[in-house]
């Protein structure tokens, strides 16, 4: 009897320690990255790093503006492509598709979300890059294809399954009764979707989009393989870009050989972490705040 209780108490304590460690992992991530970033922060002000576009590690200049704008553009354009496609797909699956089709398509979307990033990159290199190059030609612009647009397209395809899945779940959770109420008044199905279902699912869909955004910001490998990686602010869709995650991924080899380089690169990881965490927190806040207004 005593040994059972003893085991129980040991287990409980041990499990508690593990749980607390999990919670501390976030803190450890931020702290570790910050600790390593301090050297470069001591040599230049944070604002200087953020807003200067001069990136010359050999001269000790670590302005990250080009990378921040690269991330910004590629993510925004990817979202512009991905959100309508994802939402339309989610609406189709939850409101219009026959049940057999739905049961067939949903697992496929799941599969799509599980495909490794590097495989997306391979397909991006083989298909998207040449296509964008040809597209640029038709506009009279020369582009190797390794461009902002290619990065955005690959990112959009990667974000779609996630946003679609989550939005679909949210839409199917809308109670059936309000759909019937709208239809009984003589509304078409689309009017019901537009004015009633989407209205009810507003918060959840917004949260899904923001989470998709957060994941797109952090996506590294696939984008890196098609985006060109030139450290300058892109001026058109066909220009190469250099998103923030790609910075660290591309340059870790030389990290230790140039002074402050490793610190700057790890600072970029810290900035990335901060951005993603902010988006996550923001979307949680949206969900909580709008929860109260739900009927």
């Amino acid at each position, binding site marked *: 009897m005593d040994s*059972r*209780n003893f*085991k*129980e108490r040991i287990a*409980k304590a*041990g*499990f*508690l320690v*593990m*749980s607390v*460690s*999990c*919670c501390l*992992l*976030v803190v*450890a991530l931020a702290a*570790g*990255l910050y600790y390593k970033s301090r050297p470069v922060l001591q040599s230049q002000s944070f604002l200087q790093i953020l807003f200067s576009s001069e990136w010359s590690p050999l001269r000790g200049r670590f302005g990250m503006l080009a990378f921040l704008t690269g991330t910004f553009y590629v993510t925004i354009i990817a979202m512009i492509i991905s959100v309508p*496609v*994802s939402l*339309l*797909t989610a609406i*189709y699956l939850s409101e*219009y598709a026959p049940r057999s089709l739905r049961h067939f398509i949903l*697992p*496929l*979307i799941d*599969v*799509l979300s*599980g*495909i*490794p*990033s*590097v*495989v*997306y*990159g*391979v*397909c991006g290199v*083989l298909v998207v890059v040449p296509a964008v190059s040809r597209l640029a030609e038709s506009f009279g612009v020369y582009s190797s294809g390794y461009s902002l647009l290619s990065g955005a397209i690959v990112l959009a395809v990667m974000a779609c399954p996630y946003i679609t899945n989550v939005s679909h779940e949210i839409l199917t959770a809308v109670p059936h009764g309000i759909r019937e109420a709208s239809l009984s008044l003589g509304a*078409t199905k*689309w*009017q019901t979707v537009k004015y009633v279902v989407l209205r009810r699912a507003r918060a959840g869909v917004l949260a899904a989009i923001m*989470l998709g955004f957060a*994941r797109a910001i*952090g*996506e*590294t*490998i696939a984008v890196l*393989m098609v985006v060109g990686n030139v450290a300058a602010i892109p001026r058109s869709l066909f220009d190469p870009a250099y998103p923030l*995650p790609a910075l660290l991924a591309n340059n*870790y080899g030389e990290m230790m050989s140039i002074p402050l380089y490793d610190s700057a690169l*790890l600072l970029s*990881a810290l900035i*990335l*972490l901060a951005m*993603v*965490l902010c*988006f*996550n927190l923001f979307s949680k806040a949206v969900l909580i705040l709008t929860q109260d207004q739900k009927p």
Partner: protein
Amino acid sequence: MKLTGISIRKLEEDVFKVLMRLATSIVIGSLVLIIGIVAIKGYSSLNIDMLTQTPKGGYYLGKSGGILNAIVGSLYVGLGATLLAMMISLPVVLYVNVFVGPRSLIARIVRFTIDLLWGVPSIVYGAFGFILMLFLGMRASLGAAIITVAFLELPVMVRAMDEVVRMVPVEIAEASYGLGATRLETAFKVIVRQTMPGLITAVLIAFGRGIGDTASVLFTAGFTDRIPTSLGDPAATLPLAIFFQLGTPYPAVQGRAYAAAAVLTLIVLSVSIASRLISRYFARNTVE
């Protein structure tokens, strides 16, 4: 007036119906395209030698040999990391659901932080693993990769396990306590048995995520033509093999990249299908 009113509504609906079908086709089409490309490119590069030999000759110039180093490396990293993650995830999930109430403060904090961790990009985990590596004096090796990927898999696994365990009706646990069992015994003998299929699925999902990731092992695994024989040896993984070898001008090396892509995709797809089949098979037998 009524007639025109109706046709505007119907027209709008028809337009959107077309757009919706188009959107869905784009999504499915991209899946078909991806699988197709991997299959076509992989088909021409895959043969028995590719799967059973390590690269021979100089690394980027190697004209013969295969991707065995990457296959074995991936399996070692994937299995090791998943095991490590499991040893932490299961206790944490059981603690949160069985030992303390799901409404308690610690439970909410754990779920909150796991949610945050879930969204952290894998390259950040890679950077953290790198820092840890330097701190502990480790080189880029199998061991470092396993630890880093375990960090990556942890939130995925915890979330998936938690979803299953929290759905167990509280009456089942209460029945067990009523018979005099301790929480520990209830956790392992009752809850785990009840949720085993879901837990297995969670492990598979995390495994798939870990084995397919590149950014987390980019700095922490090293890369080598050889199969690692100890935790301190550098290791190659399939994603790294693809990433490093795709851009070379040597077709033989490129071929290895495509073969690796095919093998990796196959592994990930099999894991995904297996986890589906498991949940579906066991869902038949559960009573609501």
